[in-house]
């Protein structure tokens, strides 16, 4: 198949080249890759939306069959990782002293089989002091609960600090013939790649 003056590529209907392996079930997504001696990780995750972690007990999990290691922020010596877009907000990849969403990973259990990893993860015990959950902009502004000690009042971005005009008072709109105001709710958009980068 090649392009000619009479039948150029542009405008020609072309079947995808990647489809054969996809329609035959022969593609290799990350979980399809298996190598001899590979280990499996299971994560212990927070059941709380916002809480202080008061203790993490991994002793029982460490002794379970097939377990190669049980890892926490402390055992790995993790330093808080600042978000590129919000330098004020930094947390460890495994939660250290605080969890801020249901599902936040706290402990990583590595074992020789997925069943052994999952069984050992169930034998990790984490204690929590539950804090108020602050889940929307209005309550975050009104609440006494700061999600990050480094972010008083829960305001990470104040547009005035970036040189934008202060539109919070009445003066800014004083000369306008018509002013329109409203509250518009848009759901959070969280693009999630289907798979992460990986190698074997």
């Amino acid at each position, binding site marked *: 198949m090649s392009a000619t003056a009479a039948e150029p590529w542009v405008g020609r209907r072309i079947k995808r080249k990647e489809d054969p392996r996809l329609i035959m079930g022969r*593609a290799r997504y990350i*979980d399809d890759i298996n190598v001899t001696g590979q280990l499996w990780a299971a994560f212990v995750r927070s059941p709380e939306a916002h809480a202080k972690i008061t203790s993490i007990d991994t002793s029982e999990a460490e002794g379970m069959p097939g377990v190669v290691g049980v890892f926490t922020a402390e055992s790995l010596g993790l330093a808080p990782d600042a978000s590129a877009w919000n330098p004020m907000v930094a947390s460890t990849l495994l939660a250290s002293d605080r969890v801020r969403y249901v599902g936040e990973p706290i402990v990583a259990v590595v074992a020789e089989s997925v069943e052994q990893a999952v069984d050992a993860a169930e034998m990790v015990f984490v204690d929590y002091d539950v804090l108020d959950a602050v889940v929307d902009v209005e309550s975050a502004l009104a609440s006494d609960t700061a999600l990050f000690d480094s972010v008083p009042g829960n305001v990470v971005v104040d547009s005035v600090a970036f040189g934008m005009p202060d539109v919070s008072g009445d003066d800014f709109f004083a000369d306008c013939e018509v002013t329109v105001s409203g509250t518009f709710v848009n759901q959070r958009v969280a693009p999630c790649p289907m798979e992460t980068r990986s190698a074997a």
Partner: protein
Amino acid sequence: MAGSVRVSMSVNGAQQSADVEPRLLLVHFLRETLGLTGTHVGCDTSNCGACTVHLNGEAVKSCTLLAVQADGAEVTTIEGLGQEGALHPLQEAFWEHHGLQCGYCTPGMIMASADLLERNPKPSEEEVREALAGNLCRCTGYHNIVKAVLAASEA
């Protein structure tokens, strides 16, 4: 191995046996024990249908079955539906009609569609959409999937 049970079943025409834990899901038996990774896990809730295979000729969600429940049965996975050079009409149709993008839901879509066409060889568009209600796709918007199934029914 903690409390193992021997299971035997025919998978894509070949007899397979293994010692498994009773809690092992059929999808994990197919993917991990047998290495047939064409069947996918797409959710934790039985919603998505990416795990659809045929058990004794009927479409089932293999994530919601234990391997032990398939003992003595005949299982067909996407790998058993068609081969290079001898694709199933549904596989040809999905390719021809751009019924896939990332391809993750595709094996499940094809297996569910194959079951539909066995039961109802000339479905209406509505019947196709109804039959595929248990299969989710994040990429295509379903439009070309439906076209592909209808085209396969004409083949």
